[in-house]
């Protein structure tokens, strides 16, 4: 029986394992030093905030693994011997494999800041990071102030977490406006306002210069590039993540920033594959980045690779880009591509609508000549993935999109609807005369 060994029990590794099991009878072993069972990394914040207990982050009950003959090994892979198809675990245990899947995810970036390895300085990625935060910042008496470095999705999550325990937070963001490398101006501006509303001390256009130690090796303050010294007990480093692949050194597996793979998620070595955050495409797919550290891409790579491993070779071909996040109280969804004012191409035009009082806004990107829909960002409005995916595939125009916008709304029942306001704003701005059509189940289900 062929032995599939998966390093890493995150979403990509586990998805691959589940699908291989569905398709075959192969022996499957999953190795991880992080946790005994698969859990949802994205939910760690809710454990600290008291919304959930850690066990709630585990999507499968503990009996699931044995029942499906997925052998779990709690261990750390120190070396990969591709010539003999063997893994060497810390503690000198060895495991042989026929096919190897590397799904080791990421680790937090550290950019060589002075003091970055002091006690009280940490990232937020793993279960261990969560445990460390619980120890470092259990309450505002122990942690009188925290400084977060890096204005991305993890940074704002960490700020929300600490805020839930009334710990004052200073948030250092390198960019001139929050996440403006991804978000267009209006949206980024709205999130700035929302961060301040939450009494987070947001410092834009500010970099970390140094973390200062006290006499016991604990962080006691940070110094910014503006020369400001901010006393604090905890420093959160959330300036992005990087593939977690140090253990592959000397294995002969080609690596760049991540493990280099082709469209079939194969590495340069036969029978060795890489999926999820740690995989780096030789060539980026569409507008996507070569390394995609996103929950659903890890899952999709796992799904595709399982087919390949079970004899139905499939390339990893993600469809239209989509993603979502939550900035404190504001939900964000995106479908297709909406670039920032700096990164957008000449033909990309934006239509932006913002609610006069609530933190709700929409940006739709479209081709300035053909009016073709390129992408949409919504804040505080939920959209129907299926409909937008279809519109992007069918290359619908703005007129069509706005006319049928009600089909795409996914907000709960009785919520206020904004289509009318959005469309009338568009009509005024672009001199059109579009009237919205009533939502139709027939259209929504037209391809079922």
């Amino acid at each position: 029986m062929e032995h599939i060994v998966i390093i890493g029990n995150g979403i990509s590794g586990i998805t691959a394992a589940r699908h291989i099991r569905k398709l075959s009878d192969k022996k499957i072993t999953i190795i991880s030093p992080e946790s005994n069972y698969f859990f949802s990394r994205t939910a760690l914040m809710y454990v600290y905030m008291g919304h959930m207990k850690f066990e709630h982050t585990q999507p499968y009950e503990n009996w699931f693994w044995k029942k499906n003959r997925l052998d779990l090994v709690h261990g750390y892979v120190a070396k990969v011997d591709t010539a003999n198809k063997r893994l060497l675990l810390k503690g000198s245990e060895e495991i042989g494999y026929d096919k190897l899947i590397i799904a080791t995810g990421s680790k937090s970036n550290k950019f060589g800041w002075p003091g970055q390895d002091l006690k009280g300085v940490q990232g937020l990625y793993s279960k261990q990071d969560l445990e460390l935060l619980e120890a470092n910042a259990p309450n505002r008496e122990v942690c009188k102030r925290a400084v977060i470095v890096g204005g991305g999705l993890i940074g704002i999550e960490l700020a929300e977490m600490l805020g839930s325990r009334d710990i004052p937070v200073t948030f250092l963001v390198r960019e001139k406006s929050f996440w403006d490398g991804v978000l267009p101006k209006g949206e980024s501006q709205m999130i700035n306002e929302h961060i301040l509303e939450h009494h987070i001390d947001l410092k834009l256009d500010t970099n970390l210069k140094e973390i200062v130690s006290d006499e016991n090796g604990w962080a006691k303050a940070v110094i910014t590039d503006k020369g400001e010294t901010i006393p604090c007990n905890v420093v959160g480093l959330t300036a992005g993540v990087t593939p977690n692949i140090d253990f592959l050194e000397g294995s002969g597996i080609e690596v760049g920033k991540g493990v280099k793979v082709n469209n079939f998620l194969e590495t340069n070595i036969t029978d060795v594959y890489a999926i999820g955050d740690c995989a780096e495409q030789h060539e980026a797919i569409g507008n996507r980045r070569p390394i995609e550290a996103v929950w659903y891409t890890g899952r999709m790579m796992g799904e595709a690779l399982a087919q390949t491993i079970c004899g139905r070779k499939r390339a990893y071909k993600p469809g239209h880009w989509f993603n979502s996040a939550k900035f404190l109280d504001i939900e964000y969804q995106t479908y297709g591509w909406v670039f920032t004012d700096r990164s957008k191409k000449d033909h990309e035009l934006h239509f932006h609508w913002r609610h006069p009082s609530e933190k709700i806004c929409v940006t739709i990107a479209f081709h300035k000549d053909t009016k073709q829909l390129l992408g949409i960002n919504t804040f505080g409005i939920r959209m129907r993935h299926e409909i937008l995916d279809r519109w992007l595939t069918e290359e619908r125009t703005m007129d069509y999109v706005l006319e049928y916008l009600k089909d795409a709304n996914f907000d709960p029942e009785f919520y206020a609807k904004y289509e009318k306001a959005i469309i009338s704003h568009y009509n005024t701005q672009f001199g059109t005369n579009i009237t919205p059509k009533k939502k139709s189940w027939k259209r929504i289900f037209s391809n079922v």
Partner: protein
Amino acid sequence: MQIIKKIGLFTFLIGLIIFTILPFVGEFEVSSTTFDKVLREKGISSEIFVQEMERNVVGKEFSGMLSLSPKISNALETANTQHRKNKEYKKVIYTGPHDMAAAVGKVGGSGFVVDNKGLMWFLTFGLGILGALLFIVPDVVLLGLKGIKNNGIYHENATNRGWIAWMVFVFLVSFYLVLYFRSEYAVNWTYLVDPISEFLSGNPAGHWFVYGFMYCTVMSVMAVRMYIKYRHNMYQMVRTTSVLFFQIVFAFLIPEIMVRLQMPYYDFKNAFPLDYDFFFQWNLKSLLNSGGIGLFILVWGIVLTLVIVPVMVYFFGKRWYCSWVCGCGGLAETLGDPYRQHSSKSLFSWKVERWLVHSVLVFAVGMTLMTLYSFFTESSTVLGLKTQSVQSAYSLLIGAFFAGVIGTGFYPIFGNRVWCRFGCPLAAYLGFVQRFKSRFRITTNGGQCISCGNCSTYCEQGIDVRAYAQKGENIIRSSCVGCGICSAVCPRGVLKLENGPLKGRINPTEILLGNDVDLMELVNKK
């Protein structure tokens, strides 16, 4: 703000303590004229009981129900034993010993509580309401901006099965035990609400009136909490209003007013088989003897169960009843909301749930068939089983213990829908309709799910919502009551409750939206 909250909590606790002490205090003295009145009302012809009572109770002063109640029970039991021995069945008293003690106590009560009903109402209900509101309303400010605020639920003693939760558990269970089995101890509580009862129905309050009034009060106060907590969520606002309206108007006011108008007491929204004694002989007889309105109620009750309920479930799912109208659901969605996360999501619980809830349905239907058979044939047994024993067993096990003591008492430990999930026969019936023939579903939004588990954690019905959402499948489950909280707590906008066409409602998938279309087709359509 924190100070106001503390004052509120303190005030509430004072009210609660006074309320809790009441069953043990008070003076009772039954004069022979009032005793004669009870005898006449209850139609008692047992001379032994009268003798015993006159020897031990009548004309004597008792301090607290604890000393009075045993005397009455003893008198009644002595009398009944003697009559049964002598085969004087006409003289046997069929009122239970505790109901008898309650009836005698109610007319014999005197002293401070009876003389100061209004003041005592304020010191119990009044302080409770005031304190609770002082505790709840500052959240308008304290919860901060609009949005889901579940911070600290698993850090708080009260909502994480700590000692406070266990105290609440003990209090609720004891309260229900008194209500169902030791009603004489509720006599002092009935005085508090006498003025309200007399205003509504013209009669002094019984312990069930206390319960009804308290139910409405608790729901109203906790609805304020719901309004504040979910003020960003219109679905929750509308739903809470609906469930509150049906409780106060349909379950509380209309039946009381009907009594005043000499009509039978009836809750128009309480559908059989939740309303399990609807077809009991005494009820049918009372309806048939009440003229036009009785007949109307009879027809309405049957149409409600056979037509209205299933048709509405077809269009809207069982939520229209369970989380918009039903009283049990109403309490669960208001008082029970802080405990919703305790419902077990394990596969084992789901198995138990299916066995239990469907067994209760079979029990309820079987019992009703026996009842109707007995009613029409006027035989007291069916296949050797005494109809009345089966009815009593159901009333005790399901009506009192399951629905009351366990259903509500276990809120802080097993979550707020223990009865609705494991025991309610109506929910089981609606569940069949919802599962097999309904437009309702919770739609999963393509590939946006991140498996965080908020939806599963906060599902009061113990549905592992995430198991469906992360596969891109719609959630079609017979037990879903459509409370909408899964959709509310989802950080990625993945879930939406909707009523749509049947086609495509159940959509098992292997590969989620977002993947290459070929792969999706290959895997999903193999």
